[in-house]
């Protein structure tokens, strides 16, 4: 899929995301001396942001609910995702995860 947004909205997104990301990065470096660290409740919530966000990004790419359970499970994307998760768990290496995941995806795509 490709975007149908024109150059203007795309550049606007780039600049706004860039500016807001910078504001997040600069926040406490700028505020230092005025506040003492992250409020404890916010810090607790922030601890779970990476796991929750990354899982929300990953899961829909591997699990695509089909009308039947068999069709959902026999999906090359799910198969490759499970294999890649095993590689990521044992090696903690992004490159190895990428290579094994892509090769499994291509192989499973021709078999399943």
């Amino acid at each position, binding site marked *: 899929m490709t975007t149908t947004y024109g150059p203007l909205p795309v550049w606007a997104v780039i*600049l706004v995301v860039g500016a807001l*990301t910078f504001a997040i*990065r600069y926040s406490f470096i700028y505020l230092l001396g005025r506040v003492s660290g992250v409020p404890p409740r916010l810090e607790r919530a922030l601890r779970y942001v990476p796991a929750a966000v990354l899982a929300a990004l990953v899961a829909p*790419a591997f699990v695509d609910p089909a009308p039947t359970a068999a069709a959902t499970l026999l999906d090359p994307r799910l198969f490759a995702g499970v294999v890649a998760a095993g590689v990521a768990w044992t090696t903690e290496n992004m490159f190895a995860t990428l290579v094994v995941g892509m090769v499994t995806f291509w192989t499973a795509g021709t078999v399943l």
Partner: protein
Amino acid sequence: MPTVPDGFLDGVRATLPLLLGLIPFGLVAGVAAVDAGLSPAQAVGLSAVVFAGASQLATVDLLAQDAALAVVVLTAVVINLRMSMYSASIAPYFESLRRRWSALYAFLLTDMSYAIAIGEFTGGEGDADGDDAPAPNGGVGDDGTARDRWYYFGAAAFMWLVWQLATVVGVVLGASVPESWGVSFAVPLVFLSLLVPELSGRPRIVAALIGGSVAVAGAGWPLNLGLLGGALAGVVAGVVVEGRDA
């Protein structure tokens, strides 16, 4: 001959083991951006301005699906919120910097540059001069030494440069690889390899399970809100489980 500040090259060197992760990630960022219909200039601009891989991939993914622009921006911001923790943690070491420099250092703050720097600042093995001693520039102890700051700048600036080069190569590759190869599948694989090391302890595992499940259930929701809904539900679940376990 101009001299390189003490610590700068040590910082650059400290990034080398991480390049095996950074370079393929940057390649995918470039490929995914052109695949999503961004121009080469936009793809490189995204890497140069945002410089945060996971949020860049989510941004181009949502743009490709023609999601509402507010949702695109909000999702990227939620993904990058974790950096406020790094900002708070590293701030004391940047306190004696001039404002312009502290803004530049903040711009270069990423998961990787934070991890490298905080290990060095808090007295890792390679910490030769020791943070407890007064720094040569007159700063004292935990405010961070000049060497520490150059170390951070060396590491962070070098990673920014490598990120841009990897993106450019990815843009060139992305334009020449046929779509039938399905290289966009590399994007969730990158997220997966970032997710797995996060899964330590019950609250984080529950946060991931709930986040992923809600995102799958919400895949068809309008405005691509499934991703944000999943992220939010996952964070709430993690906090709740932590409260119960405590």
